[in-house]
């Protein structure tokens, strides 16, 4: 079975470049084993 999570999370727009540098950062890699309760990603104050 498979679970797909879709969610909004904070991003910050870097004005000079005009593209969005995500403030939310995933803390996993593809192929990683994860368990319930472990952080998938965090966001930081700019």
């Amino acid at each position: 079975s498979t679970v797909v999570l879709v969610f909004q999370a904070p991003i910050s727009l870097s004005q000079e470049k005009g593209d969005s540098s995500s403030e939310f950062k995933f803390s996993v890699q593809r192929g990683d084993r994860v368990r319930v309760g472990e952080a998938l990603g965090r966001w930081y104050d700019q």
Partner: protein
Amino acid sequence: SSLLKKLHKTTQARAFANGGGGGSKGDSFLLPGATVATLLMLGVLHGRRMYEDRKAEEARENGAELEFQPDVKSKFLRLLPLRSISRCWGLLTSVEIPVSLRPHVYGAWARAFHSNLEEAALPLDEYASLREFFVRTLKEGSRPIDPNPRCLVSPVDGTVLRFGELREAGAMIEQVKGFSYSVFSLLGANSFLPMIAKGDMHEESSESENTSREKNKKSWLRVSLASPKVWDPVSECPMNGLFYCVIYLNPGDYHRIHAPADWNVLVRRHFSGRLFPVNERATRTIRNLYVENERVVLEGLWKEGFMALAAIGATNIGSIELSIEPELQTNQARKKLLPSGPPEEQLYEPDGIGRMLKKGDEVAAFNMG
């Protein structure tokens, strides 16, 4: 074939030695040609499958990205009554196992699928059937929840297949290199996602920020209309992007689903779809696998905005049980053979309170059959 010829000769010789027994006794030992051919064909197919899997494994180890490649088997799967097969599997695994055999059966399952028996909440002989063992809970404290208020936690045990940010307007997620599926199709046409995805969260200039903020407000207005008591996340939070994460659960994994954050679930959509397998090979060969399979989508709000979780079933794990709606039954026999129609939707608490969950609360469970 030489082995079979030898077998053939020895059986004939043995039949002759036992007084011949006439043609009839000798003949009954004859392996009819069809059986021999079938055994040979199965052997060849199995050998080819092992060769292909080894080749795929080597390619993956070399860092090559496996591409989408429909094959005959995926077309053949479409002809099978997978939902009925899944329900039969569920009946089989619900059979009560004698108490003395339980530790051996579950131990064999754990060895085959790398389950951790130490974590099971109950002693093994207290699980009456394999199906009961499969949906076991864990000992208290087995899964500590990351307390950081600025983090999102994994809702399940499993392997991260894909993750990233949904930037394009079409909100497509890559199933495997060379094939992507639409998040709208996954979550359903009624999803609140369109307003957000179309809100072009990433527009640069400030005035468009206001317009997209307006658009967002409209979209959340729709949500707040559906749930007037739900706080409006847009006004409280900075610009938001849309992210996704796809996690695959092995058969031996712990199969209960937990809330990834403090989450107010507003709506549930049940898609009574097909039940293709969802293993690595299936993702490489079956088009729109997650969009076609039976699944339950939960949608709602968390403090940073929209959050949806799609629990997708598979042939061996066709049932999805909701802790927040125990009466929901999935993988039921369908009256019509046609593919499923629109999803069956349930708005939680029509006056819009929704079902409030704390981070780590149990939400649902996958089960066999």
